[in-house]
């Protein structure tokens, strides 16, 4: 149980922020619903099966995918495994200390995991080598390099981009007993996108910075599939949210998810795997 103190913002800065919010502006000059510049680089780690480095403003995250073989879970003998893990590296912020993943890191892992799993992005049934015995295990490890807010979307974007560019060697035993090795892409069905926003009073801010997050009332991370359906979500922050505000965020986020999906598609097309 770690209880982290949020970074101290000078009161002046905070007052300024809230004043600007009433004019629908932010400290960095963005409108309330704009993302900071997003840069996605895929294939940054050659030893991984797939990788992506994502920057959203000063937030920087790298994800690597490893595909290995292992035994399936007893209750899903006909499915491959998906394991998502996130870690805040000790140099990612002055507030992070080395050690096993704390509750914040675990939350990031689980929110990203649910978004990918529930959108059915990966066809786990197509990752079986021998039912009940041997399957492919897809490990997605996310390292947070620099923290400046909206870790959830950066982590999600990096995981999805890495998975979309993942290739692995598929081994099949042929009739004559020889093993055939084939390099192939991961069986994916869609591009899920997560959008995080925070509320400060009546204002809704998409893609918050660390500074904005430190004065947030509540946070909401929503994941959408290709059809614009919601497939996972999680509320954060220590204040309640009204039904009306919630519905407004859903509408806003849905439109934003479309924009980001276009960006991801472009990156993947240019990657030529």
């Amino acid at each position: 149980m770690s209880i982290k103190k949020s970074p101290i913002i000078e009161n002046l800065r905070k007052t300024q922020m809230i004043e600007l919010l009433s004019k629908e502006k932010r400290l960095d000059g963005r409108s309330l619903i704009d993302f900071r510049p997003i840069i996605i680089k895929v294939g940054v780690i050659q030893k991984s099966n797939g990788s992506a480095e994502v920057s959203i403003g000063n937030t920087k995250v790298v994800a690597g995918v490893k595909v290995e073989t292992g035994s399936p879970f007893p209750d899903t003998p006909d499915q491959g495994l998906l394991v998502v893990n996130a870690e805040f590296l000790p140099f990612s912020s002055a507030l992070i200390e080395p050690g096993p993943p704390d509750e914040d890191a675990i939350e990031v892992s689980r929110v990203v995991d649910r978004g990918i799993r529930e959108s059915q992005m990966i066809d786990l049934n197509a990752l079986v080598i021998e039912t009940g015995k041997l399957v492919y295990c897809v490990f997605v490890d996310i390292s947070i390099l620099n923290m400046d807010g909206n870790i959830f979307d950066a982590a999600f974007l990096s995981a999805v981009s890495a998975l979309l560019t993942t290739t692995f060697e598929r081994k099949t035993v042929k009739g004559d007993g020889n093993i055939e090795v084939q390099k192939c892409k991961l069986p994916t069905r869609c591009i899920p996108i997560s959008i995080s926003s925070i509320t400060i009073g009546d204002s809704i801010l998409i893609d918050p910075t660390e500074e904005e997050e430190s004065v947030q009332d509540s946070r909401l991370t929503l994941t959408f599939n290709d059809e614009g359906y919601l497939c996972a979500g999680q509320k954060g922050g220590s204040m309640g949210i009204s039904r009306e505000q919630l519905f407004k965020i859903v509408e806003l986020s849905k439109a934003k998810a479309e924009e980001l999906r276009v960006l991801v598609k472009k990156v993947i097309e240019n990657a030529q795997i």
Partner: protein
Amino acid sequence: MGKLIDENGIRLDGRRWDEIRPITIEIGVIKNADGSAYIEFGKNKIIAAVYGPREAHPKHLALPDKAIVRCRYHMAPFSTEERKSPQPSRREIEISLVLRRAMESAIFLEEYPRSIIDVFVEVLQSDGGSRCASITAVSAALADSGISMRDLVVGCAVGKIDGQIVLDLSDYEDKEGEGDMPVAYMPNLDKIVLLQFDGIFSEEEFKKAIDLAILGNKKVYEILKKALIEKYFSMVDEK
């Protein structure tokens, strides 16, 4: 017709789409604790207990302007179909976190500077919706401890089974259904304080689910209120 709802709209355990499972709440079950409660929510059997506000240990955790809340959600090894390892899983750590946040929105933390409020939740038997049952038990325990709060917090999940939005999924419905959405709510302030979901929901279904969850939460609230009133009125009678 699907496999979870029959042609008459009756679910496997005999409930309709807008019915919750039977709930009983008992206040003050752990004598040593400053506040405690026991809840049975369907097959869920959960104890929540509160210690504090008390001096923060270790000291560096303390905040000069408000209390901090620590929360531990834990499942007993015998609480599930197959034995659960007693070590906290990632799921338990995450639930501890979301429960803590939900309670932080209700407690007047600024009334207890430099102190700590410890909340412990032990799931003795688990069923679907254990985090919702837990939050209800926790808020009952906090009320029992006399810690000042803006509102009570109650929890009730909604979900999607056989393509329909229904209230309060059981364990089986959660496993076999298409989506689960635990929601915790402050009924008097009309604020949602915990929201998680997985499964596919259209925007319309999402809105319907939230409205149904609020309705379910109001039902749970009536039961919680009654349990608190009964406990404290019986104390008055004894005197």
